[in-house]
């Protein structure tokens, strides 16, 4: 009980599910366990050895009819060994060994519940309902007696670890899953496609694959190479490597091609599933769950004799029900009930020794062969129909919800405009640090100045004048990157004042367009997902420029003031009007304006950030989280008929972790967008990162 979380121990639904399980373990003796699993465990544990399969052959005189992987064997061994001991003491045959095997499965069952709760934090109550009270889990594990819970647990744990950015450990756990049941291998290609489809996960693929393959090979190669009994078993029937005992075939559905040749449908559908997953492109974790669920479901529908394999569906059905609401839960329930009814018809009911009921006591099939066949066919058809509806519903829902930011369609475009010295490059770098290297590309307006620094024409134009910039090329190049096309672009070297030769810039998930005129060309503006305008309080801007040019560079105050005045008309004509086109206007203000009056003030200048947002549905929540989690001071002004909503934030001492935690609370599907280890910034830059992400999430709906 100590391993069970406190909230579960007092939960009536949990206790009900637990009571049902314990009662089933004690009372029911399922056929597959009585015939195969329990004798196998009992005989091999009675004379333990490194090769239990051959040990079984020697002690029982028969080749095993299923392949229990080493992990499955080791998982059940501690429980069943205790059961075996109890049987020896009580002289009760294998009764206690069977019950112990049931408790071993109950342990896996409980562990899977805990994994699913971690996977779906915040929805623990519904996980309990959809998993712990699922009739399918109860039927397959405790009525039919299959042991697929163990590989299913390892598969779910591997997915959880992958989601939690622990790819190597995920690989190790999946390798253990394969070591429990070889058929888990079927998910590996899907996982590789998923990792490849995400730039943020792509670099983790080798680590994941090596860990998984290493562990799986280490576990499976020695028994397959050195166990005579296994070799004998596989030589007589290779399908036993993956099939459950009692399964007629794993390629049940086929089409006769004539000449004795058959076309097996399942491998074709599996390959089509892989192709579909590849074509989807960038998959979210949600869609990965959907794709795996649908792939399994289709494989299962094409394997009518499978029962235990249906357990593999469970984590994905739970995820689907949690996301898709009551109708989905209803559909899953109907499918489950029909599935149980169909399988009850064709499988033997477990014995109930306490009530004196033998194996197969419940026979629902009519005695007449033809009627029985018709009933079976009818159930199989209804199941197939419902399964297809369920698969299509899961797929439609998964695709609808996938790719929250619409990155599969085109890159995310962020424009950052504003006058020199307002922090455009700082913000662009900070955003790039969030998305991660390799996921960001971009162009800078400086590279599109028409003249080098010594060019004579700078006497006639300021940099702010659109005529001094090749805005046509700037726009064309930005649009090319947004169409996933690489560009050739020269670079303005600020150190020399010269242009470098053109170099190739690749397209990527996020395109940052920064510059004095990033929101100036209408053709570019309308293609941006978020347009940012960086502003600065005019007094503050003058203060910083004078402090730098007079204080540090030794220019005369008059010259600096003249330069500011010379730029002012162009600033008002070409730069400031872009503010009206921005989705977000970020302005730095002095927290203590009195300091601006002292030109000799050399210490730090306390700042506040004013944020004006065109669309700000989460404004109140943002303000609350900034106050509560970051300890920032925030003034909120709601949007008026003609004014943008405004926040004034004083949070210079906010830490990167504060921003990270706040973003997790505030921005949905954040994990789809950010680097595996995003670089959050402290203070105002961090708050700007947060606001840009929030706007991306709010404005992204127009892309989808």
């Amino acid at each position, binding site marked *: 009980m100590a391993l069970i979380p406190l909230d579960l*121990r007092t939960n009536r639904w949990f206790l009900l599910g637990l009571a049902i399980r314990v009662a089933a373990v004690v009372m029911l003796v399922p056929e597959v366990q009585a015939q195969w699993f329990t004798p196998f465990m009992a005989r091999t544990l009675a004379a333990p050895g490194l090769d239990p399969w051959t040990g079984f052959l020697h002690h029982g005189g028969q080749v095993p009819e299923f392949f229990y992987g080493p992990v499955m064997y080791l998982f059940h061994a501690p429980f069943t060994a205790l059961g075996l001991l109890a049987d020896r003491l009580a002289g009760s045959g294998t009764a206690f060994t069977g019950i112990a095997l049931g408790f071993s499965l109950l342990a896996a069952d409980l562990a899977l519940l805990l994994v699913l709760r971690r996977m779906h934090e915040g929805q623990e109550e519904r996980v309990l309902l959809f998993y712990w009270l699922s009739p399918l889990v109860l039927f397959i594990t405790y009525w039919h007696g299959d042991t697929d819970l163990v590989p299913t647990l390892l598969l779910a744990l591997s997915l959880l670890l992958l989601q939690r950015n622990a790819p190597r450990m995920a690989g190790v756990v999946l390798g253990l899953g394969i070591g429990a049941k070889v058929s888990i291998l079927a998910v590996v290609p899907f996982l590789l496609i998923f990792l490849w489809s995400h730039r943020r996960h792509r670099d983790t693929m080798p680590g994941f694959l090596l860990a998984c393959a290493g562990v799986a090979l280490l576990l499976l190669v020695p028994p397959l190479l050195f166990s005579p009994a296994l070799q004998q078993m596989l030589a007589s029937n290779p399908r036993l490597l993956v099939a459950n005992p009692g399964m007629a075939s794993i390629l049940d559905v086929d089409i006769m091609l004539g000449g004795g040749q058959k076309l097996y449908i399942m491998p074709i559908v599996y390959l089509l599933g892989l192709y579909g997953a590849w074509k989807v492109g960038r998959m979210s974790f949600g869609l990965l769950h959907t794709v795996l669920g649908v792939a399994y479901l289709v494989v299962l529908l094409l394997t009518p004799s499978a029962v235990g394999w249906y357990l593999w569906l469970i984590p994905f059905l739970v995820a689907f029900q949690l996301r898709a609401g009551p109708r989905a839960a209803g559909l899953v329930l109907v499918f489950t009930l029909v599935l149980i009814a169909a399988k009850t018809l064709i499988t033997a009911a477990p014995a109930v020794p306490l009530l004196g009921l033998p194996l197969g006591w419940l026979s629902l099939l009519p005695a007449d062969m033809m009627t029985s066949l018709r009933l079976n066919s009818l159930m199989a058809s209804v199941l197939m129909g419902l399964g297809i509806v369920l698969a299509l519903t899961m797929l439609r829902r998964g695709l609808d919800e996938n790719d929250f930011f619409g990155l599969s369609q085109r890159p995310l475009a962020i424009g950052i405009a504003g006058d020199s010295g307002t922090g455009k490059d700082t913000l662009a770098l900070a955003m790039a640090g969030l998305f991660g290297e390799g996921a960001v590309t971009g162009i800078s307006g400086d590279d599109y100045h028409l003249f080098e620094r010594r060019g004579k024409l700078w006497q006639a134009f300021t940099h702010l004048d659109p005529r001094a910039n090749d805005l046509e090329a700037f726009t064309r190049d930005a649009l090319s990157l947004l169409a996933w096309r690489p560009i050739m672009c020269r670079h303005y070297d600020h150190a020399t004042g010269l242009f470098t030769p053109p170099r190739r810039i690749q397209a990527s998930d996020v395109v940052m367009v920064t510059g004095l005129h990033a929101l100036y060309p209408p053709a570019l503006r309308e293609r941006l997902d978020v347009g940012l305008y960086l502003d600065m309080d005019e007094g503050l801007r003058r203060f910083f420029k004078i402090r730098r040019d007079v204080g540090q560079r030794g220019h005369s105050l008059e010259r600096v003031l003249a330069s500011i005045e010379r730029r002012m008309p162009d600033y008002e004509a070409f730069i400031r009007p872009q503010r009206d086109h921005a989705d977000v206007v970020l302005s730095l203000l002095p927290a203590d304006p009195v300091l601006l009056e002292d030109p000799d003030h050399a210490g730090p200048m306390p700042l506040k950030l004013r944020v004006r947002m065109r669309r700000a549905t989460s404004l109140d929540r943002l303000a*609350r*989280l900034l106050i509560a*989690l970051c300890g920032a001071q925030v003034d909120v002004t709601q949007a008026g008929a003609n004014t943008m909503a405004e926040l004034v934030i004083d949070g210079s001492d906010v*830490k990167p972790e504060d921003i990270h*935690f706040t973003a997790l609370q505030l921005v949905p599907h954040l994990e789809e967008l950010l680097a595996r280890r995003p670089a959050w910034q402290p203070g105002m830059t961090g708050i700007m990162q947060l606001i840009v992400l929030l706007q991306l999430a709010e404005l992204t709906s127009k892309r989808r």
Partner: protein
Amino acid sequence: MKILNPDALREKPRAILFDLDDTLYEYAGPHERAMAAVRSKVERSLKVVPSQFNHAFRQAREEVKRALGSTASSHNRLLYFQRMIELLGLNSQPAIALDLEQTYWRTLMTTARLHPGAEETLIELRAAGLPLGLVTDLTAQIQFRKLVYFGIDRYFDIVVTSEEAGVDKVGLKPFEVAAAKLELQPGDRIWFIGDAECDVVASKKVLNAATFQKLHPGASAQHVHDGVDATFHAFADFRDWARGIVASA
């Protein structure tokens, strides 16, 4: 919902007072997560091993509590961390102490969840026109941040922290301040919902309140404090029961 003293609970209340920590949200789990985050940060930044941290923190907490008695500051994590760093032989280190305090509260808040049904209960009681108050130990700064974070500040007419009262609830004063703020008259029926024994004793003593003990998961009959009038595990049960009383009269 278990009624222990039906006589105290027949009357519709004039106002309802709530405790915050471990009553409206579960404290133990988030506290563990928050301490783990602090421990890990101290290990990373100060190279202090967890056993050393645990020992120094325990000692620091005891010292602060002993020095400050039953006051809001005696619960102040900033003071605990400051003293802990001093005990580790690293002087006061205000920047590190502030960082650890922020790490603690940020982690606690982001991992804490209101108990299921708690917010709905507040909404429903408020909709019934009952004045609601929050009486809580600890400093106003952090308790207000929690209220804002959970988004439940809007449901309370008054909030009293032990910081403003000058002494913890055990010293009775916070309940007197709450009574004054709510302009309660002697004889007004008040309900108090909390988890700690001192809440029950003090609210009874000052306001003769009908007291409801929110039981922690797994708590059994022996965890019920003396003098409690009713206990409940789930807010939904309390709300369903309260409907009958609040709607009457």
